[in-house]
């Protein structure tokens, strides 16, 4: 089985090498829309190149990178030390990491929910299952219904690391395939709370978030995300093997990080990289 997969991977890699202008990108579901928009504009800009973007989750993208079945891996979280070690073991070199843009994770509630702001410790208590009633965080007296992502998602891991202090999600968290499904679930459920990327936030209400109880709660605006005021902001990454980071692929990444590429980021609803990081 493994052997056959290996052969398949080799065949795919060979096929990629033949078509010099063909770039495959795989990974984060959060970055699929952005990646496809980038690919579309880039292909219009530089005819003769093809960029194929698919999702599946950051974990899936990283696995594909390790198996050599994709050129670029989209990831909405930094690679873990163990994953970097796996990469070094396989390719005998360190993986190349690029920050591509910024994203603020939004916390959504149903439109009818009177809640307007929430703090990170409150979010931690809610999503780990310590707080189960809305009245404990300033809402109506009714149980909280939790919506989250599948565990292959980078958003899942980011939220777990930065909001839950690495604790486990409550077993009662309903796991949805994709942020769009989280939004759909939250928009239909009056007592719900969910999280996801900003670009998806339609049909539900995003609440302001404060770093600690009592501190100022802020909205996920560009200014707040770039200055670090908004507490659950993150970088979105591209990972690739050093051997691939030449020619067309390197050009593509440079283009995405250029002013033209970063303008696309804004169109899609994410936040461009601060100037000093481009």
């Amino acid at each position, binding site marked *: 089985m*493994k052997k056959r997969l290996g052969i398949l991977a080799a065949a795919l890699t060979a096929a990629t090498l033949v078509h010099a202008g063909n770039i495959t990108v795989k990974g984060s579901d959060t970055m699929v829309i952005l990646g496809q928009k980038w690919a579309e504009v880039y292909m219009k800009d530089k005819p003769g190149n093809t960029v194929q973007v698919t999702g599946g989750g950051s974990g899936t993208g990283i*696995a594909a990178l390790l198996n050599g079945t994709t050129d670029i891996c989209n990831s909405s979280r930094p690679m873990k*030390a163990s994953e*970097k*070690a796996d990469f070094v073991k396989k390719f005998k070199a360190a993986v190349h990491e690029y920050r591509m843009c910024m994203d603020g994770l939004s916390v959504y509630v149903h439109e009818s929910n009177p809640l307007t702001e929430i703090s990170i410790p409150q979010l931690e208590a809610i999503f780990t299952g310590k707080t189960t009633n809305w009245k404990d965080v300033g809402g109506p007296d009714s149980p909280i219904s939790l919506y989250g992502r599948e565990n292959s998602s980078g958003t899942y891991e980011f939220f777990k690391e930065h909001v839950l202090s690495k604790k486990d999600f409550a*077993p009662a968290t*309903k796991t949805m395939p994709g942020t769009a499904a989280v939004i759909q679930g939250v928009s239909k459920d009056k007592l719900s709370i969910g999280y996801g990327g900003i670009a998806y936030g339609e049909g539900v209400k995003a609440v302001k978030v404060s770093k600690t109880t009592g501190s100022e709660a802020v909205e996920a605006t560009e200014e707040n995300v770039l200055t670090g005021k908004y507490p659950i902001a993150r970088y979105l990454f591209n990972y690739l093997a050093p051997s691939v980071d030449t020619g067309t692929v390197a050009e593509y990444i440079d283009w995405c990080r250029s002013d033209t590429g970063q303008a696309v980021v804004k169109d899609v609803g994410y936040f461009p990289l601060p100037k000093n990081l481009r």
Partner: protein
Amino acid sequence: MSVPAAPNPAGSAGVDPGAAVVLDARAPGAGPRPALTASRRQAHRLDWLIERGILLVSTTAIVMILLIFVFVAREGLPVILGRTDNARVQQPLTAAQAAEASPEQLARYLGVTPAELKGYDAETVKMLVELKAEEMQQLDNPDARFNTTTWGMMLHPHRWHDYDQAAYIWQPVSEIPKYNIVPLFLGSLKATVIALLVSVPLGVGAAIYVSQLAHAKLREWIKPAIELLSGIPSVVLGFFALIVLATWLQWLIGYPSRLNAFGAGVALGLAVIPIIFTISEDALTSVPQSYTQAALALGASRWQVAWQIVLPAALPGVFAACVLGFGRAIGETMVVLMASGNATIVSASIFDSCRTMTATIAAELAEVVFGGDHYRILFLIGALLFAVTFVANLLGELVVHRLKSRLEGKA
């Protein structure tokens, strides 16, 4: 599983197919065997070939099932036998300590074979040592000393250090991966039982109506319509359940969690109804007319005939339909993945969200490390699912056999 036909009421009065053979010159004392003509011999050979061909095809099906089970179970074998150990008790090594360590120690520390270690240059080894130290520093957790892949951890509740009480926890992507399969098993059970509670009365009821009570014209409409239901792709059914059915049911019943085992079970029931209906209807229709006619002649109403004569006579077939329905319900993936909410809750309420074994495999297998613990446990779940369906079918077959013998007056 075969669908038992209704018992042959004629018994000995029927034509015995063996009788024709006896006449065919094989009975002793029937005189010298007449020589077969060439064309007849050829026909015999063709029959023989076709027979063998069919035998081959049917054995292939059995072999395939066996192979699937063997391969699925093989991937999960290290976990089944308890040969995996993910407990971590090592201390991180500094660069200086790593330089002093023997190649064997270093290889074990880094999780590679000594041969692989030899293939790395100094720079690569240095990178690996740094990454390993970083990985271990991130992992400052008192639960790291547990091997979470044992049967005990998979079946019994455990109190993890940041939990208030012992609990059944399925959290495979975590600092400490927690692989308790009880919530998944319970999720499958809830969804399946609800699906059967919905589909058995509806499916069997529709079958009785269509085969016994309905007007011929009406039957020609209802039967294909129900059978058409089986043609709906399960992903479409799941989508319908997620968007429409969940909202309707919540409005109707008023439970707090929109996506839950009940809604998923009802949607699953829709997928199972055509199977139960088709097979039950076949069984009911094949009950001999003479039963019905005799009962009607004695003055029974059509309803009495259907309920007290035909249904008991067709019971083995109807039961077999339910067992097949169970197999479909427990194995169905897309509907439950989309409509159940997939939360790993252990509770008795059917209005809580649930996560089934099938949905877990479908959602998680795509991103696991090949050959890792999580991968093996997902295969173990697959093998368990197979075993459950197999045992259910076996028991079903036994019950069908019992019912049949009783019906024929043998037991």
